[in-house]
Each structure stands twice: as C-alpha cells, then as structure tokens.
C-alpha cells in the first residue's frame, strides 16, 4: 500500500466543498507558504522534491520555474494546462471533479512562488461540468479570503480564472494553449522564444499540468526532502495513473513511482488483472502517443529485469524495446484486441486533431490514416508497412510541435513489435475482417540475451 498524497481524502463525503476540504487539512500549504516562506524558498523546495512534469514530457518542474524570466515591471503568468485530451488519460478530470480545491490550493502556492498576479486554468471545452465545479470552488475560496486582494493578510493579490477551450487536442500543447487563451486560433508557436521568456501576451509564463500543480501542495506541506524519499531514482513522488482498457478494475490510481508494473496490473489493490480471465497482449503505458509494447516486453525489460512504473524504467531500452511514462494513460489490451485496428484508431485521432499548420503533420497523419484504414479492412499490401514506417520517420522531428512525434510513435512502434499481425492482415485479408489475430507469441518469455565470448 503506497502513500496517498493527492487522493488521500478523495472518499470523504463533501470533499469538493471548501469547509470539508479545510477541515481535512486543506489550504495548510497556502498558510505555510504565504506566511513563512519566500517565493525563492518555494521554488527551491520544489526543486529539492525532484517533481517532474506530470503532463507527459517529464521535465523537472522546479527547473522550469527557475527558468522563468523576471524582468522588472512586466506581468508574469501561471497557466494550468487542464486541456487533458490524450486518449487513455483521464486523471486530471478525476482530480478536478472530486477534489477541485487541491488544484486551487496548488495554484495559489505556485502563483505566489512565481510572482504571478493573475493565473489561468485552461480547461478543455468538453469538460463543462468540471468548469462549473472549479468556478464554484474558486468562488468559495475567494469568499474565505484565499483568493483576491491581500490573501491572508500577506499583501499578496491573486486572481484566478477558468478559461474553457474549444475542445481541441492541439491546445494541450503549451504554446497553442497560450494562443488559444489569447483568443486566437490554437496554432502552436514556433520556439524559441519559449513561454518562460515570452508566453501569454508576450510576458513570461509557466504552463504546468494539473497534477504537477496539485503535487506542489504535499511538497510544501511536508517539504521537498520528504517528498523526494518517495519513488525511485529520479522519479520521485506519487503519480496518478488512469488505467483503462481490458483490466478488471479500471480507474484512477495513485501509485508510488517505482511500483513494479506486474503488481500494478495484477494486484487486487490496483487493476486486478485482465478482465474475463483473458491474457494480456499489449500495453500502452502513458497515453496514446507513447510507443505500444507487447506484453512480454512490457512486463520485463530487454535485459529480463522486471519493469517498474517510473520514468526511467518505462523508457528502458529507448524506442527499440521501451516506451514512456507519458501522461499516465495506461491502456491494457487483452488477446482479443486487434493492434492494427487500434493503431488505425489512434492515427485517425491524430489526423483529426492535427492543426494543419506545418506540412509533414498535416499531410502525413492523413496519409497514415488512409493506409491503416486499408490495412485494417483487408485491402493492404506488404509494402504498406514499410511505407508507414517511412512516412512516420518523415514526420517525426520535422514538425513545429510534438503532435507530429506523437502521431508517428504509435504507428512506428506498432509495426516494430506487431509486424506479423500487420502481415497477417495482408495475407489473410478476408479473414482479418471477421476474426482477430489473437495473442500469438506476444506474451512468450523473452529469449535470453546471447553472451558473446
């Protein structure tokens, strides 16, 4: 049983209201931070904690904060990225729905640390209920004096706004989010300049994921040292994982980073194994953009060591035999799932969500989608696999924002690990539309690495 830092009181009735949240020790970090700490001390504490961005890239949050330019007389902004739209990820929505005050508490502390007088929570347009929940929570906090002018008599003013987006995946990219927040079309900006230098309205801006900001609360309450003791290596603290797919108990779980994936997948405390007594075929470990792995490579690394839920262990083996932590959208596939169909589905999503600004992503995602559609429906050719790999390589790294990479990785990895299933779709075109390839050898134990004399 790991320690719960974010979801400790999630089952307390009425925790979404200010009074219950406060009675459970809520807003203690605001009091501590505003009354006893300086902004620099908070940044230092977050740095010490080793907290890494929970939105996908895993960049150390404290480092990001310390990069923020601080010119005199220019506003600084903190923007919370709640445009969670990655297929498979639903942790931020869960957090905002059930324990909204945690996010607001984190926002106050983080804004104070960065010296922001105005902060925004950019929520995806589809999450209308969450927007209302957050707005109500902000109103409650304001009425109790935790927001607005002169918070808790410390002389610090903060206005917090919730901004609904238009429901575009691309607006989860930080510069596209800022464009959208400014009221423009949500196209990613060309970097540099980075938001830390010129972000919202040309002012220095920090964009953080919901979970990263919420994690600031336990860091301030308990101290960065204490927080960094949880987890393993450079993956410190706890992480929300939204488990979905063919697991017995899908849902949002808070785990200590470093938990073995086998335990996460099969223990009754977490996912409880694969539903309906089936066997595991493949796993997408961190949302649709990360490489998909077959069961055997997911449970064990290429060196036959057990894989752990941590940034390092999941990416062990690079893109050849590893994957990424991503945003924690854990999707498990049982033996009856078709990888070709799944890859097509993901690519269809990226085709639909590409902003259309730069050419490789705009044209390449549509091309891959059409080829995969053909493969899935039994009209594919043997050359299609090489074509897909080649197109994905031409997209990867050549685009303005990471959406191109996110679209290319699932396709390239699916073909890398499941090539025989793709080939079967070509050789048995008519059969492929009526039944699935099955588990095949994807859960077989990994071969022992040959020892070279």
């Amino acid at each position, binding site marked *: 049983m790991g320690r719960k830092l974010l979801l400790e009181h999630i089952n307390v009735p009425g925790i979404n209201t200010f009074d219950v949240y406060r009675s459970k020790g809520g807003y203690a970090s605001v009091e501590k931070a505003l009354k006893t700490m300086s902004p620099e001390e908070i940044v230092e504490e977050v740095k010490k904690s080793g907290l890494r961005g929970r939105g996908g890239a895993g960049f150390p949050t404290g480092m990001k904060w310390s990069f923020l330019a601080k010119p005199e007389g220019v506003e600084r902004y903190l923007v919370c990225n709640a445009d969670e739209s990655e297929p498979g990820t639903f942790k931020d929505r869960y957090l905002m729905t059930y324990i909204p005050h945690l996010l607001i508490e984190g926002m106050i502390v983080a804004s104070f640390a960065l010296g922001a007088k105005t902060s925004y929570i950019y929520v995806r347009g589809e999450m209308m209920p969450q927007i209302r929940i957050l707005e109500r929570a902000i109103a409650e906090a304001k009425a109790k004096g935790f927001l607005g002018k002169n918070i808790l008599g410390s002389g610090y003013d903060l206005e917090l706004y919730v901004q609904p987006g238009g429901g575009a995946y691309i607006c989860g990219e930080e510069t596209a989010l800022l464009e959208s927040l400014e009221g423009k079309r949500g196209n990613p900006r060309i970097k540099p300049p980075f938001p830390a230098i010129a972000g919202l309205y040309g002012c220095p801006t920090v964009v953080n994921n919901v979970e990263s900001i919420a994690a600031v609360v336990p860091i301030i309450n308990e101290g960065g040292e204490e927080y960094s003791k949880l987890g393993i290596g450079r993956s410190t603290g706890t992480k929300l994982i939204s488990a979905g797919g063919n697991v017995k108990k899908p849902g949002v779980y808070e785990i200590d980073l470093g938990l073995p994936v086998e335990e996460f997948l099969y223990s009754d405390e977490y996912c409880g194994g694969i539903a309906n007594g089936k066997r595991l075929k493949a796993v997408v470990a961190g949302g649709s953009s990360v490489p998909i792995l077959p069961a055997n490579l997911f449970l064990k690394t290429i060196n036959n060591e057990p894989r752990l839920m941590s940034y390092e262990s999941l990416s062990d083996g690079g893109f050849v035999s590893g994957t990424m932590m991503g945003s924690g959208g854990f999707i498990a596939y049982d033996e009856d799932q078709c990888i070709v169909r799944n890859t097509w589905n993901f690519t269809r999503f990226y085709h639909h*969500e590409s902003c*259309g600004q730069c*050419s*490789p992503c705009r044209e*390449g*995602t549509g091309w891959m989608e059409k080829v995969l559609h053909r493969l899935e429906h039994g009209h594919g050719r043997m050359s299609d696999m090489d074509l897909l790999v*080649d197109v994905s390589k031409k997209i990867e790294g*050549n685009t*303005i924002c990471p959406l191109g990479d996110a679209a290319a990785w699932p396709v390239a990895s699916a073909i890398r690990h499941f090539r025989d299933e793709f080939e079967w779709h070509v050789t048995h075109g008519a059969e492929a539309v009526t039944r699935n390839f099955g588990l095949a050898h994807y859960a077989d134990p990994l071969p022992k690495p040959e020892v070279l004399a």
Partner: protein
Amino acid sequence: MKVTIDGIPVEVEPGTSILNAARQIGGDIVPPAMCYYSKLEGSGGKCRTCLVKVTKGSEKDPRPMPKLVASCRTGVMDGMEVQNITSPEVIEARKGIVEMLLINHPLDCPVCDQAGECHLQDLGFEHGAAKTRYEFDRRTFERIDIGDKIQLHMTRCILCYRCVFTADQITNTRLHGILNRGDHSEISTYISKAVDNDFSGNVIDVCPVGALTDKTFRFKNRVWFTKPVQAHRDCDKCCGKTTLWYKGEDVIRVTGRKDVYGEVEEFICNTCRFDKKKTADWVIEGPSKVSHKSVISSNHYEFTPLPVVKTNPVLLEANKEQFERDTRL
C-alpha cells in the same frame, strides 16, 4: 557574427536568420522557402522545406542542435556551423516534405495559371521524387471568388499562411484567415466575405502556388508566352513600381516586381494591378531580368538572333533538288 553554411563562411548582423545568412551567400546552398516571406512579419516555420542541420550551435556552446531546425525562424549565433545540401539527413527530410506537400496537390499544372512561375513546381522539380506513393483521393474544394478580381482555388493551396499575414499586415481590415483544422483546413475570407481593399491584390503575388489567381489574367495566357517589362507610374496609393507582362502589344497582367526568391520588392495597389492595362498608363523602364533557368526566359532572346544565311550554295543546291523531286510527280 560569423556563420559557416555548408563550409562557406559569411559575416552577418546579429539577429539574422540562417536562411537570410544563406541568401547573403547565394547560390545552391540557399534552402528553399515556401512559407517564409521576408516582407511579412511572423511568416515562416510552417512548410518545413527550409530545414537545416546545425552541427555546431555557437562558439560558446558548440553542441549540435538535436533536431533539424527551420532555417527561416532560427537566428544565427556566433561561430554557428550549418549543413544544408551537404547533409544527407536534410536532403532526405526535404524530399519527404516535398512529397507531403504534393500528396494533396492536384498536380493540374497544365491548366494552372501559376505554372511556369510556381514555387512548388520548382521545389518538386529540384527536390521531389518522380513518382508518388500516394494512392488515395486528393482533397478538393469548390472555387471561391474573393471579390471580383481574385479567385481562390483551395485545392492547390499548401497552407503557407502568407496571404493571411498579408491581409493582416498590409490591409486595414482582417477578413482573411484559416477555417477548420488539419488537412481539411482552408483559407477563407471570413465566411465568404469579399475582400474589398486597395491592397488585397497582393495576396496573388505572395501565393507560392496557383491557389490565389488574378481573375483579369486567368486563362488568358501561359506566363512563358508573355514578356515581363519593368515600368512605373505615379500612383497616390503605392510606389507604382511594377512589372508589366506583355503579349505582343498588349499588357495582359501587372504584378509587383519580384526578386530572385520570388518576393515582391514593394507591394502595389489594386488600381495599378487591375485597372491600368494600357501602355500609355506606364513609363517603361526596360525588360526585366529573367533567370536563364526559368521557363519564362525560354522564348525571349537577350541577344540579336543570328542572321539567316540566304546565299549558302549547299543549301541552295539541296533546295533545288528537293523542289525537283517534289514536282516530278
């Protein structure tokens, strides 16, 4: 600041982009640019054809950049070393991007007014593959009239955003932008509102492909049958310096003066562009220089043709024989 591009060193001002540094050197090492337009602020970075490899970041920080960078939007650093045509990686990436740009392009060059002065044609010719691997339907759009002088054929568009920036920065009202997302996004005058502005015609000049065409010139002629002539007139709205395109004695098109990279020197107004189509309206300066590589130069001789030899005895004899053979029957 000293930059080395493909082994050629050049001294440039701080703040210059890699592309502009390469343009100062000139020649084959200049990366192609489909979306960058030096006269438009904020343009560039979108088409990705100008990707280059930075093998040495700067004198202070000699680490190479991890990814290929868009040379039009990356500033130079002192001591930077850049590879363009000497890097196989760049050539490969550029080939891929040209292929991507062409998969949804209709390739209707035989009936396209831009053919002969189209940047995409040049780009495809220089960097593309001869065949396509794309086997699906290409996206198509209905043609839209933007006002009575400009036609938008979205099917040919490569979404470089140049016209959007033009409408934004040169004209006073912004009725021009992008609708939708991804490969179905389209240039639009905001919900088909006609652009009625004195400088709206410039979107034709900035368009690298045949998506925005001049309706007064549409289907009148192929550009390589017309002859460009520099001319000017007194105009109260713009500089009045233009290029007239002659077919015989008639001016059939007026455009801005373009440099070697296809960028206009100065933007011109709609009166000059659409209404002044008589030689009498203009002061002729002389023929425009056209690169010998351009198809436009193919029918124009800058030297006097060789005199026809009428008294060649060999030819006279041959002609006589031919005449007799033909008339014997």
